């Protein structure tokens, strides 16, 4: 039995995926410290590396039509092992959501509202996400194109306004960094913006038609990746080597916009865009978390769990890291290593087992 009654159109999936990937625009900064001026390369390489795995997510969701990943795990791995795998998924959703909520808090405390208590920023933001989750996936999907347009507008307009300050020699030399740093950068990129699309295994089950699910997932992914690429190119071309010393490269580059001393201090644009995009990403994660927990316990609805989960998320977000430096340090190592099996092993393995066992049986029997 499906917990979610709302339905998502196939083309809305495109906007959901694109907006979700765009929501990671702030997290490029984690890679900048590692891959410096070659960040644009690792974004492209990360996309190429993660594409087959994302294909496996889409194929898996299409094979088990109308089911979320928790139901699929029970069916493929059996009740006990399925629950263990589901707990891994839930832990990932729980932690990633808390990191993203913390990102917004850190963004505001560092750049926009330094005197506001950190916990109040987290409470306000989480409460807003909880409200969106209460409204359901259908409502989020219906407004998804607005989030994407807002993000694209800010990314393209700031790129255009900074063109006169760009120095494309900042990208040279092309292959200067040691391989291990490039590898870490690719791992980071394939895990954070792209691998996190594993959250859609909780959402694709709500599609009314799955015919174009794979195509729309990939178009969305491509739009999201292009957005990240534009931001990365802009920051490197404007800031050059100095981009590694800033806490937020996007903020720093946007602060340099000066058109005839009239258009200056445009960093509020980045503040708005990043808040909106991370809100969208967090809402999708929060929705996936609430539905996954409700499905695990066999509940009829996820709605009663939204507020208690919000309470847990706020405290985890407030205490999980000691500082932004600690946040970056742990994310660049344990953060991307612990989630690797979930993103790169379990979905293809689930698909393989389902194929060998001929699952789901009743659906395929009907088709035959």
């Amino acid at each position, binding site marked *: 039995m499906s917990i979610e009654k709302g339905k998502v159109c196939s083309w809305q999936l495109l906007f959901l995926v694109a907006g979700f990937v765009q929501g990671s625009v702030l997290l490029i900064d984690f890679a900048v410290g590692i891959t410096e001026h070659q960040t644009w390369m690792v974004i492209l390489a990360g996309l190429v590396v993660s594409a087959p795995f994302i294909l496996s997510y889409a194929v898996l969701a299409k094979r088990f039509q109308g089911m979320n990943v928790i139901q699929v795990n029970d069916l493929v791995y059996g009740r006990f092992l399925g629950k263990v795998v589901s707990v891994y998924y839930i832990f990932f959703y729980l932690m990633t959501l808390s990191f993203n909520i913390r990102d917004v808090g850190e963004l505001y405390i560092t750049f926009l509202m330094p005197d506001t208590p950190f916990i109040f920023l987290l409470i306000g933001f989480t409460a807003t996400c909880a409200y969106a989750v209460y409204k359901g996936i259908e409502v989020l999907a219906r407004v998804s194109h607005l989030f994407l347009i807002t993000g694209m507008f800010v990314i393209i307009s700031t790129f255009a306004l900074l063109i006169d300050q760009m120095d494309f020699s900042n990208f040279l030399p092309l292959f200067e960094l040691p391989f*291990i740093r490039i590898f870490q950068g690719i791992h980071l990129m394939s895990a954070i913006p792209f691998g996190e699309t594993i959250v859609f295994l909780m959402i694709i089950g709500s599609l009314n038609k799955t015919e174009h699910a794979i195509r729309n997932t990939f178009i969305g992914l491509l739009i999201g990746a292009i957005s990240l690429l534009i931001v990365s190119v802009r920051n490197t071309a404007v800031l050059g080597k100095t981009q590694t010393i800033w806490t937020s490269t996007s903020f720093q580059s946007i602060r340099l916009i000066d058109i005839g001393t009239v258009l200056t201090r445009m960093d509020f644009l980045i503040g708005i865009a990043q808040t909106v995009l991370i809100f969208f990403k967090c809402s999708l994660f929060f929705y996936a978390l609430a539905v996954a927990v409700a499905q695990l316990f066999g509940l*009829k609805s996820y709605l009663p769990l939204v507020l208690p989960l919000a309470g847990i998320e706020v*405290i985890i977000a407030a205490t*999980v890291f000691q500082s932004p430096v600690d946040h970056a340090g742990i994310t660049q190592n344990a*953060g991307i290593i612990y989630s690797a099996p979930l993103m790169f092993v379990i979905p293809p393995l689930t698909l393989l087992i389902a194929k060998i066992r001929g699952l789901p049986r009743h659906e395929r029997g009907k088709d035959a």
Partner: protein
Amino acid sequence: MIFLLFAYAFIITVNVPGLIKRKEWRELTVFSILCIIAFVLGLMYVLDIPVPSPMRGLQHLIVDILGIKYPEN
């Protein structure tokens, strides 16, 4: 502390009457467990008791015990 109590009084007032009315006991049980966890975490935060970080535990397991890590940049 007062804010925390008000917040959880609000959460309980919003959810519990409906769950009891619809006799959704399983939902009520999971809701209560999550509420207790959230309240205890909130209380620890308010009283300045260190809340254990799952990521710190994972970092210890992956980096210190298993030795899987990327070199320092």
